[in-house]
């Protein structure tokens, strides 16, 4: 803890040396390259599935930016994903803007809406001193409020059945309607956000966030405007979720209230936790793994998936509280140590 603070203080000059290539960055580069090769070997159906999964991974990255780096769990992050999706859907379906510009306008509205709601809520509760578990409860309520509005305000949101007919994403001149083009759009956005986050958080900002997570009062005493930094991180995290949601809606072509519901808020926590929270690249891998698993389990029974998530949460706490990768590393170490001891 002191370590992080001292480094944060010193890194004003020492920053360049701190930016060596870290394991997380190497994993991220390998992952992005592998994904970029996928459309050459996979069919269109798989590619368009992966387009959606990569956007969900971007959503998970957004949550990890806040939860993983500040240690404060947001239980309502689907609110921001849903705001992005609904912002896009309402703009393109309801507003009657020139179709060439509508997706861009929808993207802007979705991201701004998500960031603005995060700003207002974050201002009230982060500056109000709400932290830890209380923050989690308030964000849980936020997801419920957002869901109730999505269901109840049917004139705008389409109510329970949602909105259909969201056009594929395009900018004037380029359309991303083809599965492969959509896939590269998703991968491009994900990689930009991932590498930016890794780069920024490897430096001074990351150290300040670590200091706040370890001891906020101490960090504030040393002159860091902790409430502002937390609020900025929360808004960035929400904007990323909104971005993912907006593009996701153009991929699937419709929005429904389950994009803004508690179950999705819960699932994104699972993705981050499986990959290891705070690692940024982990949640991306976690999303892909869990999605594959979900396909298998949901094909057995629709009810089995929530039960699997519930069981996972309990196991997560009791068996591997630091995330599955950390658990596997420890397990491997113990196995190796055991072998060494015997021989």
């Amino acid at each position: 803890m002191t370590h992080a603070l001292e480094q944060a203080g010193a890194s004003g000059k020492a920053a360049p040396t701190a930016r060596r290539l870290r394991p997380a960055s190497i994993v991220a580069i390998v992952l992005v390259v592998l994904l970029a090769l996928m459309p050459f070997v996979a069919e269109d159906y798989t590619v368009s599935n992966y387009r959606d999964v990569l956007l969900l991974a971007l959503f998970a990255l957004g949550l990890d930016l806040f939860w993983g780096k500040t240690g404060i769990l947001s239980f309502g992050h689907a609110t921001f994903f849903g705001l992005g999706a609904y912002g896009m859907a309402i703009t393109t379906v309801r507003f009657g803007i020139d179709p060439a510009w509508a997706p861009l306008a929808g993207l802007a509205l979705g991201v701004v809406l998500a960031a603005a709601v995060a700003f207002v809520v974050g201002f009230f509760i982060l500056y109000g001193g709400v932290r830890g578990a209380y923050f989690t409860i308030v964000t849980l309520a936020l997801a419920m409020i957002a869901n109730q509005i999505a269901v109840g305000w049917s004139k705008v949101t389409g109510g329970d059945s949602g909105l259909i007919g969201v056009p594929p994403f395009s900018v004037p001149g380029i359309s991303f309607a083809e599965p492969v083009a959509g896939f590269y759009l998703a991968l491009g956005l994900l990689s930009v956000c991932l590498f930016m986050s890794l780069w920024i958080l490897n430096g001074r900002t990351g150290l300040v966030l670590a200091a706040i997570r370890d001891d906020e009062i101490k960090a504030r005493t040393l002159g860091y405007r902790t409430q502002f930094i937390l609020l900025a991180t929360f808004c960035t995290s929400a904007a990323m979720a909104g971005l993912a949601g907006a593009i996701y809606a153009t991929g699937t072509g419709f929005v429904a209230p389950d994009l803004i519901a508690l179950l999705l808020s819960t699932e994104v926590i699972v993705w981050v936790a499986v990959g290891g929270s705070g690692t940024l690249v982990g949640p991306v891998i976690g999303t892909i793994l869990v999605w594959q698993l979900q396909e298998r389990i949901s094909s057995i029974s629709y009810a089995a998936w929530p039960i699997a998530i519930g069981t996972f949460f309990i196991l997560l706490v009791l068996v591997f509280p630091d995330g599955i990768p950390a658990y596997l590393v420890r397990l491997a170490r113990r196995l190796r140590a055991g072998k060494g001891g015997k021989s």
Partner: protein
Amino acid sequence: MQLALPMLLNALTLISILLMVAMGLAIIFGLMNIINLAHGEFVTIGAFTLVAVQAAGGDFWLGLILAPIVGYLFGLVLERVLISRIAQNPLHVILVTWGLSLIIQQALQLLFGPEPQRVTGPFPGSVTFGHIQYPAYRLFLIAFALATFALVIVALRRSRFGLDLRASIQSAEIASVMGVDPGKTNARAFALGAALAALAGVLLAPLTAVTAFMGVNYLARSFFVVLVGGAGTIGGVAAGSTIIGGLETFLTYQIPPTVAQAAVLGLAIVILRFRPRGILPA
């Protein structure tokens, strides 16, 4: 004027329901500081106990007696097996209780099916005040909730168990030196909270659609009742339910009910910004 009395009684009904649901949470979350996201499912378990009792030919009163016992035993086992191991870490409690709530919801749905369950209340008639008729069952519910509330307050203030509980919350170490078993006390308090929630479920069942997901509706609201009223006091629950329930009933007359619920939760967030320790801080 014609509207005022039914509105007042409707507000009192909702306030009583919230009071019943949140009382258990005020013990589990307010006093013991355990963030129990499965609290809504304790309510559901109570309601389904009534469903099972009535399906087996029993009447409402048998359900009213059995549900708190079922809730108590469930809470006791849960606290001993899971919660007591992880109670120090709030994040772990959140994840485990939320996981549990997902499992209970799906399990109940698998057992009883997705369609709303049929339950019958004990008083089908209504009572007449001048020109206005009001369902007798709702009046019973209001009286029952107030009586239970009074009983719980007396029990926590006057009984040996209440003293033990307050002592072990203040300092588990010193309480154990004085001959109190904090582990046992915590388990019994948690179970009491679960029993109260199950009782609330029975009372609620004749008024709503009883489904496996009914508890979720009450989860956020009951947390806000405790937070707005002031965590750490049982008396705060009355203040919290009056504000949340009263506002919601009033707004429901002006705007659609779902939007009214959302507006009240939004307002509660604003209240917490200015009174982070609640209306009646401990």
